[in-house]
């Protein structure tokens, strides 16, 4: 109690000094979440403006006689003629480890009712991306737990990999699987006391999503025990366009704190199409000139400055990394639209999800032919490279030959073998959502496929074979998996051991 009184007295004492010179203006026009304020002669671009009653605004337009301010907060209480004051500060968000496990909004205010965020460090929302000399090349893998991605389109720490597809093709699911996989790896490393493993923290930025969708994502992450390693930054569809426009930058600022402090982070932007739409709305209300598809002229710069902030920095400059997984929703599979082509040219590769594959039952519906990772096998475990190196080529050949198979013509033995192998590989890559597979199990399964253990299994039973085989490995051959994980490469001894294990399993499997 006396503590409380001392705090109050200190605060009263602090109010003795009068404020220095302030800069004020009055609201001349107000509408659609944007206020035109007359005065504010000292306002800077992107400065925070105090509009009274705890409502903040952000300066976006500096005109001759007035200032265009977007309002972050409840603008229904403001009226024409209200006084606005500059704060001299750029928009900042609290950052740090105290944000892990929390759900926050664009200003860093908590939305989950678990109390205020205790953080003494704030990072500016808009920041210039690391320069060329500060960066380092990407060679550490991000194990997404999805076999199709880890084998053929590997992602590295510090890479930007776009996930692009139509609605309801499983884009968010891939990101949630990655987050769950990272949480499991983090927990395993903590339990084993492995200090050489760098944990990967995840940030999920929900831009303009339905609140029910965000609630479902949070429920899934909580059930999987991934929340202690994740931050959720949400600006739902009912938030103003200004909030939706700023929320990815706020998430990037939180990720940059991890990058600058020797830790690795992964950020998911779900999704950037809605982000571009929100920015278009803000720009049109600010009467900025519009271009193609009514997007403002700098919509490329909007996404490029956001995605360039994801990088791997050198040891002297923070020794961390920020991996970005932006999501773009296409309409009717049109990847040549304006915003998708922009983002494809910015990122280091894309994962392309097709509705046809989804409805054929191939889930995740990854189109291996159109997906690419420009970092590639530099960010892949050596063991995985050894077993999965030829998979992409084999699948490409299978796709070409599959057309012949449909006609039912008589094929020679070699072609038939390729088609059979291709069908089985496609079956192996199907995976249930929210069940990531550890990389050592993936290596063992793909090794088994490449060495013909699945060739005698009829195609409809391949998945049952695979799941039983994975159970077999995980429950009865834990040491083999641990050795693969430790050594990172398949030596001849390991291959021989794998052979014995696979033989033993195939004999008993009916």
């Amino acid at each position, binding site marked *: 109690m006396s503590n*409380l009184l001392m*705090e*109050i007295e200190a605060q009263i004492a602090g109010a003795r000094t*009068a404020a220095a010179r302030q800069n004020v203006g009055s609201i001349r026009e107000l509408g659609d979440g944007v206020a035109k304020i007359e005065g504010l002669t000292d306002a800077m671009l992107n400065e925070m403006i105090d509009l009274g009653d705890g409502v903040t605004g952000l300066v976006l337009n500096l005109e001759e006689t007035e200032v265009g301010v977007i309002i972050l907060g409840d603008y229904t209480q403001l009226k024409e003629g209200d006084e606005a004051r500059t704060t001299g500060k750029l928009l900042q968000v609290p950052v740090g480890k105290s944000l892990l496990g929390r759900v926050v909004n664009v200003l860093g205010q908590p939305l989950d009712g*678990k*109390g*205020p965020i205790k953080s003494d460090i704030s990072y500016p929302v808009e920041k210039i991306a690391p320069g060329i000399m500060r960066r380092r090349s990407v060679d550490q893998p991000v194990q997404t737990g999805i076999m199709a991605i880890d084998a053929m389109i590997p992602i590295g720490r510090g890479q930007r990999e776009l996930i692009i597809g139509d609605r309801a093709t499983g884009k968010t699911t891939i990101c949630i699987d990655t987050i769950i996989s990272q949480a499991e790896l983090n927990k395993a490393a903590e339990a084993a006391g492995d200090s050489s493993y760098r944990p990967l923290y995840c940030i999920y930025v929900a831009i303009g999503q339905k609140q029910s969708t965000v609630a479902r994502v949070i429920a899934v992450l909580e059930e999987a025990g991934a929340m202690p390693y994740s931050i959720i930054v949400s600006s739902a569809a009912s938030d103003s366009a200004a909030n939706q426009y700023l929320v990815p930058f706020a998430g990037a600022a939180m990720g940059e704190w991890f990058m600058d402090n020797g830790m690795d982070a992964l950020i998911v932007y779900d999704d950037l199409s809605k982000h571009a739409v929100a920015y278009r709305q803000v720009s049109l209300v600010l009467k900025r000139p519009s271009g193609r598809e009514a997007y403002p002229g700098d919509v490329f710069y909007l996404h490029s400055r956001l995605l360039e902030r994801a990088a791997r920095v050198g040891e002297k400059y923070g020794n961390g990394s920020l991996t970005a997984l932006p999501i773009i929703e296409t309409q009717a599979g049109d990847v040549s639209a304006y915003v998708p082509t922009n983002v494809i040219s910015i990122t280091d590769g894309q994962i392309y999800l097709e509705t046809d594959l989804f409805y054929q039952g191939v889930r995740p519906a990854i189109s291996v032919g159109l997906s690419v990772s420009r970092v590639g096998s530099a960010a892949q475990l050596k063991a995985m490279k050894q077993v999965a190196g030829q998979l992409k080529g084999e699948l490409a050949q299978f796709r070409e030959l599959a057309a012949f198979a449909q006609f039912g013509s008589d094929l020679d033995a070699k072609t038939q073998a390729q088609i059979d192998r291709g069908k089985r590989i496609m079956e192996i890559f199907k995976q249930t959502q929210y069940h990531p597979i550890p990389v050592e199990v993936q290596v063992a399964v793909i090794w088994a496929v490449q060495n013909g253990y699945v060739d005698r299994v009829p195609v409809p039973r391949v998945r049952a074979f695979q799941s039983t085989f994975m159970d077999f490995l995980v*429950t009865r051959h834990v040491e083999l998996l641990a050795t693969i994980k430790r050594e990172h490469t398949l030596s001849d001894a390991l291959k021989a051991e794998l052979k014995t294990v696979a033989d033993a399993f195939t004999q008993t499997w009916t």
Partner: protein
Amino acid sequence: MRPEGILATFGVDWSHLLAQVVSFGIVCVILYRFAYRPVLTMLEVRRQQIALGLANAEQIKAELARTEAQRQDVMVQANAQANILIEEARAAAARVREQQTQKAIAAAEQITINAREAAAREHDRMLAELKREVGRLVVQATTAVTGKILTSEDQRRLAEETARRVAA
């Protein structure tokens, strides 16, 4: 009696007897060729088959004995493997039980920690609210009172202070 008389009594006539012998001979020959030989061949064949069957039966019995021995072997092996499997399953079950216990303990700890944190948060919230209310009262009181107690000297001092700030 005389031999000729015996023969005449029994009706034996040399020409008839000869004819009968000849006919009997023809009948014999015909029977032998068309009846006895096939029958005898057939009997011979059957005899051979029976002999073969008996030999086979011997073999089958031996085979059966061998298979029985093999079956016993396999049963023994299967038993041994089953035992190994049971042991492994037991070990796996023990591991899983250990994991589940740990998980349950962790969950229980988490619940206590959550409850404690919730109580601490509630406490902090109340203190913050209290601070706010006290602050508001202080400001209210000051607003009501200050105007009346400030002298013209104080007013002058405040005005000078602002003048200095403008000039600075």
